[in-house]
């Protein structure tokens, strides 16, 4: 087995507050990403998935406190100097953000912004013409027609789908080893979503770029990822092969989440919502973070938090009473 590309151990992100315990939004998150692997992180808003992703590039808000270990190719990211992290950003690890409408600088040409991503890491100092050619090639790669001409456009002259593709082109400009895509399809309509997902799959197949895909859309995970990590209230609660997790979930939260997804073979039935609200990160909650909403919770669930423990091959779950994986499919 080769060494992991990215290895996260006991990652924590918290926001200190004056005269109160700090707000912890990510705690005890650990997982690995192998070179060329596509891993999905699912979870609802506020589950800490975006903060986990942004920690990798150290792009957290100024007031955030980071703890734990993030190793990229064996190098500890939290210990890097500002210059080292800048050299890594956009070159070895790059990121596609959620909202294509606001991710481009509105007053600069698309081509210049993509060109900037290249020029910032271009040790050979290519000339303007070489840079333009490279930008046009990238835009063509993501399926934008007439790329040399379109590179001169401003962001407001692009549609949402085109912008997301241009953003992806910008993120892969330097053939990164890891691409972090933070809800890349959330703001797009369904047909365009599909195009962007195909694009990501092609990138992965053609250049071996590992992808960490953050989403709250389980269908997206099902179509793209071999492995999925489920997050809830800042913790990884389940981590395993996508087909296993989606068909035979072991954590009650994952199970409830799957129950709330509309399915075409069960048309006409009411969707099941998960009762209650996710816990407020500002108020500490003892025990398993899901226990107030869990139909099977017993006394110890509210007293002590379970660890993420292996259950089957390459599958982990953070639960005292993991589901047996068979009943879930029948329910």
């Amino acid at each position, binding site marked *: 087995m080769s060494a992991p590309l990215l290895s996260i151990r006991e990652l924590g992100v918290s926001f200190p507050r004056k005269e109160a315990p700090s707000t912890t939004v990510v705690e005890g998150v650990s997982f690995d990403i192998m070179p060329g692997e596509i891993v999905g992180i699912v979870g609802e808003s506020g589950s800490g998935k975006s903060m986990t992703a942004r920690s990798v590039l150290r792009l957290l808000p100024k007031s955030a406190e980071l703890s734990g270990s993030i190793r990229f190719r064996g190098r500890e990211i939290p210990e890097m100097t500002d210059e080292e992290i800048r050299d890594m950003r956009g070159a070895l690890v790059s990121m596609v953000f959620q909202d294509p409408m606001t991710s481009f600088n*509105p007053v*600069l040409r698309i081509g210049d912004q993509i060109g900037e991503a290249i020029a910032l890491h271009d040790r050979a100092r290519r000339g303007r013409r070489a840079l333009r050619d490279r930008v046009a090639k990238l835009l063509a790669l993501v399926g934008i027609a007439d790329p040399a001409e379109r590179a001169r456009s401003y962001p407001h002259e692009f549609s949402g789908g085109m912008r997301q593709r241009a953003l992806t082109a910008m993120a892969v400009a330097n053939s990164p080893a890891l691409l972090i895509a933070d809800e890349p399809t959330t703001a797009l309509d369904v047909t365009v979503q599909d195009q962007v997902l195909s694009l990501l799959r092609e990138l992965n197949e053609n250049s071996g770029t590992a992808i960490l895909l953050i989403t709250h859309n389980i269908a997206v995970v099902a179509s793209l990822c071999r492995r999925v990590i489920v997050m809830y209230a800042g913790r990884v609660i389940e981590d395993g092969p996508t087909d296993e997790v989606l068909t035979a979930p072991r954590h009650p939260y994952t199970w409830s989440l799957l129950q709330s997804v509309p399915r075409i073979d069960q048309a006409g039935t009411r969707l099941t919502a998960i009762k209650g609200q996710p816990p407020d990160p500002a108020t500490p909650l003892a025990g398993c973070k899901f226990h107030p909403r869990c139909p099977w919770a017993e006394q110890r669930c509210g007293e002590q938090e379970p660890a993420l423990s292996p259950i089957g091959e390459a599958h982990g779950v953070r639960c005292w009473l993991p589901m047996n994986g068979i009943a879930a499919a029948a329910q």
Partner: protein
Amino acid sequence: MLPALLRLSLRRALLALPLVLAVIAFTFFLIRLAPGDPAAILAGEAPTPEFLAQVRAEYGLDQPAWRQFVAFLGKAMTGDFGTSIYSKQPVFTVILERFPATVLLTGTAMVIASLIGILLGAASARRAGSRADALISAASLVGYSLPGFWVGQLLILLFAVSLNWLPAGGMVAARGSYTGWRHVEDVAFHMVLPVATLAVFLLTMIARFTRAAMVEALDQDYVLVAEAKGASRRRVLWNHAFRNAAVTTVTVIGLEFGMVLAGAVVVEIVFSWPGLGRLFYDAIHRRDFALLTGAFMFSSLVVIVVNMVSDIGCAMLDPRIRR
């Protein structure tokens, strides 16, 4: 199809025309509504009624105001803006003679205020919420609140009277008649205090607005994206945040130009600077209707043109404004 920018400039110029006309009409009648009779001032002390009537007739002051206005417009079309009642010279000539001194004063103040204002605004936006930011904000609020005539006189007291480092007024040394480089030096020396007085106000405005616009820009997604590309802090600040905030800065500079011109009247009086401001001031006291109309018209025109230029500047900075 004309290029978007040229089309925008032409449209703005066309829109400015009725504005200029309205300004002319407004100032023309406003001056005549003000108390004071230029004929009485011209005729000297205790004139005979006959002489007073003669003076009035000479300058057309015996006609109804609307008649005077029509006559003025007719002449203005041919480039004749009337004759100064006091100096008997064509208004246009008198104004053009004084214009360069004012341009030098206000232009220098604007350039210096813009540079320092932008730097201060950017510096405090970058450290938003810090002590340095609070200090800059407080200082600019103070600077913004200080009246120009008071700042000017304080500067004179300190640097000219007490320390005797700089001249208290005028544009050139009274006794030396320098030429060439020495002349430039002499004028620059005399400019320090009036420019500083004028720049303080503008600088604080520019700093405050630039700070606000940059704080907002720094919070945008594209700044995060730029950082994720590996851009340095400085690059993010100037190439991304300031490029967006610049539209606000340029708009403020354009809008504040009118205030600068008004401020120049005060500063020119305090520092005996031989510019348009002094000319206006004297014209008001002499009830020099012709010169006042011309002066108002001219300065309004300058303000309109500067605002047009700033609009076009904004369109150059932000492609979304061009259409």
